[in-house]
């Protein structure tokens, strides 16, 4: 065995430069040969390639020979090799899982690509792409988001095309009668020596289903159908209690969790003093932080389950993907 390894190493030293000039070969090394998906005990020269191509389509110059100096070779499809990039950096093409944002926000996550009227568009949250309702269709979307250094026009990747407005439950009331009554009662309370104060708010509980928006890339070549550290999406499925899920996000990268609650209604804080009620949500354990909003949530088979948008120290709140798709009129 030792001898085999030494022989393979010596051979590698001699042949690696030449092997790396062959089409699609991105790495060469010594390793055990795999036959029919099973590891064997035979040491081989492993050529990693971006894509396995049938011998009939390769010139003899580019083909990896069966053996080199009597040592067998193996071909491993590693895909393209890249230096690992942080999701907060600029990506072209930009995959799911990286920093993105409306030009007036900090930064969120690019979820994934979806189809709207046959066109590829970027899916994320309203509060990521549409500044929590405070945006106009056509506004520039930056990748990375402004907090991560994204600037207009250099990092302008897409234009906002549509968002589902979020209805907030509480806002200071503009009713003068109610305010007068509250002021009067507060004065009485003050006289009686109490610290308690009444505040007039207009409470209108309207249920939201999704925090979602889409943006059209300026150039299709600038976006990628993959999700960082996850790969391509294999359809959609309904989120269920106990389902194992994963996401790739701008702040915490690739994380996994489990759906602990369904049919969740929750009061979600937006900024300092706005609250929105959401219903029919999925709740997973903690698997995200600020900046991960907009991440696509998938099951173990890479099927899209939801759109991450909120969370706490102990929870992650996820819109059901079926609600996102039906309200925006999009498909995978």
């Amino acid at each position, binding site marked *: 065995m030792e001898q085999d390894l030494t022989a393979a190493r010596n051979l590698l030293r001699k042949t690696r430069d030449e092997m790396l000039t062959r089409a699609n070969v991105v790495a060469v090394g010594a390793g055990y040969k795999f036959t029919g998906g099973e590891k064997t005990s035979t040491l081989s020269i492993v050529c990693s390639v971006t894509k396995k191509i049938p011998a009939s389509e390769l010139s003899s110059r580019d083909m990896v020979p069966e053996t080199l100096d009597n040592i067998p070779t193996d071909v491993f499809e590693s895909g393209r090799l890249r230096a690992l990039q942080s999701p907060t950096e600029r990506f072209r093409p930009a995959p799911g899982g990286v920093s993105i944002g409306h030009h007036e926000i900090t930064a969120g996550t690019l979820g994934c690509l979806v189809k709207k009227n046959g066109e590829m568009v970027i899916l994320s*949250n309203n*509060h990521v792409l549409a500044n929590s309702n405070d945006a106009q269709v056509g506004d520039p979307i930056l990748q990375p988001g402004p907090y991560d250094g994204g600037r207009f026009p250099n990092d302008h990747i897409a234009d906002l095309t549509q968002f589902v407005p979020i209805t907030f439950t509480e806002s200071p009331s503009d009713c003068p009668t109610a305010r007068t009554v509250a002021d009067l009662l507060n004065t009485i309370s003050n006289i009686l020596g109490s610290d308690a104060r009444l505040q007039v708010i207009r409470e209108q509980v309207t249920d939201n289903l999704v925090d979602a928006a889409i943006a059209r890339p300026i150039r299709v070549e600038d976006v990628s159908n993959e999700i960082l550290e996850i790969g391509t999406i294999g359809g959609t499925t309904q989120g269920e209690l*106990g389902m194992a899920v994963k996401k790739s996000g701008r702040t915490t990268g690739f994380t996994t969790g489990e759906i602990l609650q369904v049919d*969740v209604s929750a009061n979600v804080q937006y900024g300092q003093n706005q609250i929105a009620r959401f219903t029919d*949500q999925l709740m997973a354990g903690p698997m*995200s932080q600020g900046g991960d*909003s907009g991440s696509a949530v998938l099951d173990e088979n890479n099927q899209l389950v939801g759109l991450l948008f909120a*969370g706490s120290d102990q929870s992650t709140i996820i819109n059901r993907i079926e609600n996102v798709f039906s309200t925006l009129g999009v498909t995978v």
Partner: protein
Amino acid sequence: MKYWLLLLCLLLPIVSFCKGETMSPSIQEIKKRHENRLLTLPSVVSVGIGRDKDGNPAIIVGLDGSHPEIEAQLPGSLENYPVLVEVVGPIKAQ
């Protein structure tokens, strides 16, 4: 008038019989019936359906912190479904 009374006498047992036949409300219905009231209680941030430690369906009420006085106000069960209280912390858009 007599005719109507007669009809009523006939209908009543049918209606009550049908009522007895209907299934007891699902946990989703029970949750829906009570969630608005629960979500207006101070520090309640979520109401959802999960499982208790034995794996049985339960209504789970999430609080933004530990508040024994609020927990004391919450029912132990709602129409035969257990109610569990969990501190999830304030839920914020991320």
